[in-house]
């Protein structure tokens, strides 16, 4: 009797634990365009981010913001929102993780600078621009920047064309961009496909991690 009771209990516990340990699916999609900034001496000074949000989140974020011309927002009108964005990003370490010579850097960046929001009235989407400077410029053989949300509430992905650029990089630096397969990213979204392939390559946060690797000789 106790054995049966115990196995029933185990099942029950698994059920409840599964309920509690559920994972969120993304509610926000960000299409990234990234620039790695180099100093004249070849060290990397920081990352310039341009993150374009999906249309639903853009509509949500711009809700209630006063606009002079209906259907569009100016940079000035969006300035308070950009401030909120940047402030709340701090809690999430800007979702930007740096690795220097294979070693993860904790608190590598200064607070964001040059931040602003742009609105594209045609696509009805917002783009957040901000620059993250390293606390100290990094001179290293290998630098990796990863951008992802560990809780996977936000799905980060690179844009289709030339999403990462090196600005002012020495000639001997090479760039490698790792674009994980993500069938559910806006660019690739199609309702008719994916039923068969829906199990392939799906992971959360990190396995969707977008890696920028720069190697300089």
């Amino acid at each position, binding site marked *: 009797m*106790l054995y049966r009771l115990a196995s029933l209990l185990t099942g029950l*516990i698994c059920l409840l634990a599964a*309920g509690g340990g559920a994972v969120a699916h993304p509610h*926000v999609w960000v299409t990234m365009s990234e620039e790695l900034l180099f100093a004249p001496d070849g060290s990397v000074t920081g990352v310039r981010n341009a993150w374009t949000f999906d249309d639903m989140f853009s*509509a949500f*974020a711009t*809700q209630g913001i006063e606009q002079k011309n209906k259907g569009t927002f100016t940079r000035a009108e969006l300035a308070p929102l950009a401030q909120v964005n940047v402030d709340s990003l701090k809690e999430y370490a800007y979702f930007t993780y740096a690795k220097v010579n294979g070693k993860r850097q904790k608190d590598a960046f200064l607070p964001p600078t040059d931040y602003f929001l742009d609105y594209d009235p045609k696509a009805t989407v917002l783009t957040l621009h901000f620059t993250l400077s390293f606390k100290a410029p990094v001179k290293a053989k290998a630098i990796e920047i990863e951008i992802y949300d*560990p*809780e996977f509430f936000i799905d980060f992905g690179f844009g289709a064309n030339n999403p990462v650029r090196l600005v002012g990089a020495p000639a001997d630096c090479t760039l490698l961009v790792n674009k994980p397969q993500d069938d559910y990213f806006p660019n690739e979204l199609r309702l008719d496909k994916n039923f068969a392939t829906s199990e392939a390559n799906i*992971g959360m946060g990190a396995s969707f991690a977008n890696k920028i690797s720069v190697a300089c000789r």
Partner: protein
Amino acid sequence: MKRSTVASNAFSATTVAVAAALLLMMSALSAALAQGHPFGIRPPDATGFTGWIIAEQSRFYRALSGLIRAAKTDGSALWGLMGISFIYGIFHAAGPGHGKAVISSYLVANEETWRRGIVLSFAAALLQAITAIVIVGIAAALIGTTAKMMGDTVRVIEIVSYALIVLVGARLFWVKGRAFRRTWHEVVSGAKADGSATPKHDDHVHHRHSHSAHTHGHDHLHGQAHHHHDEQRDHDEEDDSVLPWGHAHGPEPEELAGPGGWHRGLSAIVAVGLRPCSGAIIVLVFALAQGLFLAGVASTIVMGVGTAITVGAIATLAVAARSAAKRVAATRPGYGSLALRGIEVGAALLVMIFGALLLTGYMASERTGLF
């Protein structure tokens, strides 16, 4: 010989109860740890079933915006919107923040029927949809506040909701803890007396006793204003003194179910359903921006129905597992009911733990805000 079996049975029953409580706590803890990620620690990959669920949710969620846009020009797209909203709701309930764990634990702790479990699930899910509609309807559509204000509102509601979950859990823990202690005394000290003095004292007698206790309890319950805690306590203590064996396998926790249980069920519904779903809020605001707020409202309600189906199914499983455990336990008066009381205490504790983890932010729910 008889004595040693009795002692070992008592021991095993206790072990099972303690192990259950420990496991429940561990699973709650691991669930919590799986959600909080300190800097730089990657979450495990979600593959297989979990990954599939996440992928499907993402897919349906992303389809919603296209369908709302399409509905602006083509009314028939509304049907598609409703269909996708429904399926999305079914999948989405698998995500955090829809009270599967809290509702299931509550049902197990409270010995509720599956029917009540389903009603509870639907009520909570619909309340969740209504909160989202009310927030967006008032804040965005009428007053025209910003997303930040809405996010802040949701955060306040969240805190209230999580605090309520802790309270519901604490109340259950108190009631069930007392029941467990009582059963413990009856079974363990009773067993000792049984083993040494009257080894021939058989189950038959217990059976009769417990039945009379059961009837007595019910009469009492219906005859008086059973909402009042003091009366409840009187009733409990009376049972204790008059019929020390009475609870051997009597369905005493049912004092919480039945007609009197509904207003207690309400507290669970509110605790779980108060917090709106972030996805619904985003969809509603988007629909509003597209000039199709009502389509958003309909979509949110249909989503809620879908969510309720999943939560209700999981809750039914939990109730089924519990009543199976009860049937097994019924074959052993005394130790069986002690183990059952142990499960209830563990489940009540789990409700409390879930609430506390949500409240302190160790167990992540969905974010509603600008990030």
